[in-house]
């Protein structure tokens, strides 16, 4: 039996007797998961309880089968975190920040090389690597925060509103960077109220409102449940070995029985309309890095429908 990555049981947090998180009982298996909800829904409080920063009023949390209340240090060895409001040691350079966090996570390979590769990866201009962080712009700080979260091989990275302070072009870049890490096997847990950005990354969601679960599940299952039948197939980055989008298109178009309309092949994705999701999934499983998700905007529609109920 597969153990969930995160499991909560009757998790509750009260502030002055008002429940901010109310009896949250969930099991997260998916490697990419998002908490969605309006401001004040309890998303950040839940994440902070996962990280051991906030003690629950009642209930339990298990991450990688370890009880967070008694083993937060051991769990934090495996977790990277990007907070919504990222702060830093202003007199220390970006390189020193990454070296410190890499050291603290007991990274046992070449730290210098690891730090340089992450400085490159996060996209901070090389002339700022050794400059004090107080000279960094908000966007550069956010990039540094992302590198801090991912450095030192964490198994799970928790991102709290990771794209809220980033301009539209920067968002696309950061989403791609997060997806790249996800493809390399890092589990991602995101909290956000910007649904459009999140839907490109996550496989499962939990919509919270006033501390209670409104909706929980796999994005594809939820799309089906809400009668959405448009999906998009993408090839993940670094996936040259498994064939291109054209090969996937050829495979899909041959299965006319399961399609409601002719698939549309675009530069970066194939758009299909089908009520037989299982069959589509079985076709694309032959392509190792092909990924199917509801068409862009579906998650937002699901969110609005849920919140209106």
């Amino acid at each position, binding site marked *: 039996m597969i153990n969930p990555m995160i499991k909560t049981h009757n998790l509750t947090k009260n502030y002055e007797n008002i429940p901010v998180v109310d009896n949250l009982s969930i099991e997260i298996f998916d490697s990419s998961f998002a908490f969605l909800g309006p401001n004040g829904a309890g998303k950040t409080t839940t994440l902070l309880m996962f990280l051991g920063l906030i003690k629950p009023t009642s209930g339990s949390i298990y991450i990688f089968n370890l009880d967070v209340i008694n083993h937060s240090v051991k769990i934090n060895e495996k977790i990277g975190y990007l907070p919504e409001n990222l702060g830093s040691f202003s007199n220390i350079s970006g390189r*020193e920040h990454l070296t410190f966090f890499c050291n603290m996570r007991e990274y046992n390979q070449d730290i210098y090389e690891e730090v340089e590769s992450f400085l490159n990866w996060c996209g901070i201009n090389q002339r700022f690597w050794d400059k004090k962080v107080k000279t960094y712009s908000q966007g550069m700080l956010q990039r540094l925060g992302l590198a801090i979260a991912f450095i030192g091989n964490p198994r799970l990275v928790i991102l709290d509103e990771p794209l809220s302070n980033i301009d539209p072009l920067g968002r696309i870049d950061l989403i791609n960077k997060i997806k790249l890490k996800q493809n390399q096997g890092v589990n991602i847990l995101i909290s956000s109220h910007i649904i459009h950005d999140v839907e490109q990354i996550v496989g499962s969601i939990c919509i919270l409102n006033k501390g209670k679960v409104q909706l929980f599940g796999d994005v594809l299952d939820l799309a089906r449940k809400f009668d959405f039948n448009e999906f998009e197939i993408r090839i993940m980055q670094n996936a040259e070995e498994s064939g291109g989008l054209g090969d996937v298109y050829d495979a899909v178009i041959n299965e006319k029985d399961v399609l409601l309309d002719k698939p549309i092949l675009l530069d970066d994705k194939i758009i299909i309309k089908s009520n037989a999701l299982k069959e589509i999934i079985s076709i694309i499983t032959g392509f190792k890095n092909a990924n199917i998700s509801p068409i862009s905007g579906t998650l937002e529609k699901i969110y609005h429908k849920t919140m209106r109920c």
Partner: protein
Amino acid sequence: MIERIQINKKRLIRLISFFLRSYRRDLRTIISIILSIIAPIYLINIIVNLSDSIIINQEFVDNYLFWGSFITYSIIIFRFISIIITSDIISGDFSHKRAMILYTLPISRGEIIFSKAITMMIYLFILQSLTLIISSLILWIMLGLIVSFNVFLLGLLISYLSALFYFSLTLLLSGTTRNTIVSALIPLIYVYIGPQIFSIFDLNQLSYVFHENNGRIFLQYFIYGDFTGLNIEQISSFIILCVLPIIIIIITIFFFKQIDIRI
């Protein structure tokens, strides 16, 4: 095993060296250095204004110039320095929004606070040692006499113990209030207004300055080598000087482990 009794020495040392590096480049370090220069300048001023009739010998240098004048002044200066540099030691993590990444490191909160305390103790020790060494050099250059080693060590001890108390008190306030201004103001009020208020209500035992003075008298017996007149009040005050900072640091760690951290 429950993690609170596990200490990862390697991570602790890394944390302390990181904190030392970040304080080294801080504005407060520059302010502290400038303030710590005041005491040697004061010493120079006393030496320059010494009357010609005074016989300058080792006893005069040890007891009057170093212990009687310089150390008294140094204690006052370092009270202030320790409050200034410690006021945002924990609250700064919240005001600069770095608490969320710092306290999710794979190291317990207790160890983080402990390493911050150790960092500050090292920092204060270096600063005080340098100030005392500079003042000894001033005495040697200007009078040709160097302060006796035991007097130097006792001076460093009393000055350090005093600084440690104000540091620990400020650390506690910084951790509990998470407000830098309050963390600095309360110890300053306690040190400068407190003794007068306690004196009015005959509550001198509650004044740290009272114990500090008794502790100085206690150490003075070691300088003179004459222990007649030493009383239990002076001994207990010295014990309070040594133990109180440790108790306050333990209370801070215990308290800080219980709170919720969010910005």
